[in-house]
């Protein structure tokens, strides 16, 4: 560091003018803030390795190891994988033989239902958004607004008519039913998000492609879509998280075979009259985090571009 720089500058608190130029002082602060936000998740992950007694202990047991006696025993728990095995198989009545809890099925359901409905919404929504953006109708804004109003009511308000309709249509408890519902549930924001991405593109590029000889389909698939990959990724992840975590519709509209993890989780921890099984709950939650975490992790480069799209002038 240059001579005459202040103690703050030497700590890395110099004025940053570009990416990667912020000093490690900034990094430390960002790390601290991230830690505060990540703490609940961390507690869940730690709890998932504790037995019920340790999970309820006061003061809480923070660490799985005493670091060779450095930490007093009161703060140390013995890590166990019991919670994880009992997610999938445990004895429902004390003393009885372990039986399958059905969670393998619930995880499969959650993955299939969430990914199919989000992809479906993405396919339909992207086409709709392209249409709204490139071929505006008379009253375009009104249509867009109407589409958005479907998301303005709390789910609980519309749930009863939805249940009745599903029953009448024979859709309750079926995969098709819940996938259709989630697709409809994801469409409004998919359309709005994708429209804003398409609006950002220069229409000149599409005109150039037309003059170069591409058909309308080629303009959409070869020119427009590659430019909104980041937007597709961002929209996909947002939709996935929303659908993945959805509880109310899933509770009332899925059957035994099509039950999703949030519903299964609710039933697993509430039963038995012995209070909440915190360790079990934490284990389910930890497992539940993994798929969304992986998707987000692999799409993170696109996501960053997706959420900052349009903030930088071309």
């Amino acid at each position, binding site marked *: 560091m240059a001579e005459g720089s202040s103690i703050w500058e030497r700590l890395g608190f110099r004025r940053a003018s570009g990416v990667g130029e912020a000093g490690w002082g900034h990094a430390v602060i960002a790390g601290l803030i991230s830690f505060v936000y990540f703490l609940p998740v961390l507690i869940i992950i730690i709890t998932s390795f504790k037995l019920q007694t340790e999970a309820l202990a006061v003061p809480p047991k923070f660490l799985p190891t005493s670091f060779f006696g450095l930490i007093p025993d009161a703060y140390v728990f013995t890590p166990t994988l019991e919670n994880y095995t009992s997610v999938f198989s445990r004895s429902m009545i004390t003393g009885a033989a372990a039986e399958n809890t059905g969670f393998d099925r619930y995880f499969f359901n959650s993955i299939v239902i969430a990914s199919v409905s989000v992809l479906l919404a993405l396919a339909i929504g992207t086409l709709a958004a392209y249409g709204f953006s490139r071929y505006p109708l008379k009253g375009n804004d009104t249509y867009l607004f109407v589409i958005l109003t479907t998301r303005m009511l709390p789910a609980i308000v519309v749930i009863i008519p939805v249940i009745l309709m599903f029953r009448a249509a024979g859709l309750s408890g079926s995969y098709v039913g819940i996938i259709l519902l989630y697709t409809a549930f994801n469409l409004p924001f998919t359309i709005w998000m994708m429209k804003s991405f398409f609006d950002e593109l*220069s229409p*000149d*590029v599409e*005109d*150039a*492609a*037309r*003059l*170069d*000889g*591409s*058909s309308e389909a*080629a303009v959409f698939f070869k*020119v427009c879509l*590659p*430019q909104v990959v980041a937007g597709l990724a961002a929209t996909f992840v947002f939709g996935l998280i929303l659908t993945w975590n959805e509880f109310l519709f899933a509770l009332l509209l899925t059957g035994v075979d099509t039950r999703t993890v949030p519903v299964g989780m609710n039933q697993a921890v509430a039963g038995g009259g012995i209070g909440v099984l915190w360790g079990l709950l934490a284990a389910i939650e930890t497992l539940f985090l993994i798929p969304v975490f992986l998707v987000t992790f692999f799409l993170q480069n696109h996501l960053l571009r997706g959420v900052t799209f349009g903030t930088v002038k071309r």
Partner: protein
Amino acid sequence: MSTIEVKKITKKFGDFVAVRDADLTVAAGEVVCLLGPSGCGKTTTLRMIAGLERATAGDIVIAGRRMNELPPEKRDIAMVFQFYALYPALTVGQNIAMPLHYEKLAKTDADKRVRKVAEILHLTDVLDRMPGQVSEGEKQRVAVARAIVRDPNCFLFDEPLSRLDVELRHSMRGQIKEVLSGLSKATVIVTHDQLEALTMADRIAIMRDGLIEQVGTPHEVFARPANVFVASFIGTPQMNLIEAELTGFADGKAEVVLAGNAVALRTDPAVGRLAAGKVTVGIRPRAFATTPAASHDTIPAQAELIEPMGAETLIHARTAAGGDIRVVVPRGQRVKIGEALHLRPDPRQTHVFDGAGKAVRA
């Protein structure tokens, strides 16, 4: 044959008429500039030729074929856009090769064509870069390269140089002209920069409010403007357009009351057929001679502001009636602020426009 004929085309956006009854013919190998202020309909005209806008009325005939109903991809036209419109996800080389891709040309032939075009436009070194990684001037050349890489019916340029700095603009003007001269295609260039139009065009079509006001060679539109608008639009500094009252015509001279002074100016003989009344007299700033004494064919004025422009000096002179006359004199001629001037217009460069703004000529 690569020709463009635009016959009485009109474009309406709702009630707004963007282009009205525009007629334009571009021969093979000819470069025509559509020149006009922003919003005059020149880009709309170009986009109708390209097929990106549908003409409300009229015919568009390209290479002898009526193309009104054909979508752009079927018209076989190459266009260079104002903001270049490069495909952001493709390299420079792939961008140039894109039009060939749709022509289903063999890969080796396509590569050869791309290399050749890149050489002409000095892009060989940047073929593998992305459009975001090349300079503004290079982007512009990539756009041109993409247009000339295949053999289209005609070329269209929409404000091709407006995003370049002065120096680049100057050199690109020359380069584009050179490239176009080797291709013998009908070409239409849209621009709002008269210098660009005057230097690049074989003929210029000047537009205003959706109407083509005059079509002519650069020399014609400068020397014989058809109306007041063309006269004011072409030429720097702007032509002086002075409101005057025509009182009579005798001896080849128009007797006018101009800026409060009665003067007799030698003009086109056709002015003799004009009834007395309001006219506009147009005289270019370089068409004045200053004389030491007042005479019946001089306009008296007082030098008010002096702007040296290097080789010449621009004088803003005030007439007795308070009007402003721009006069350009050679650098050697010293004029002081407040000095009384007697300005004698060159009769061959004195234009008279009738009450409706149309030039009066034989």
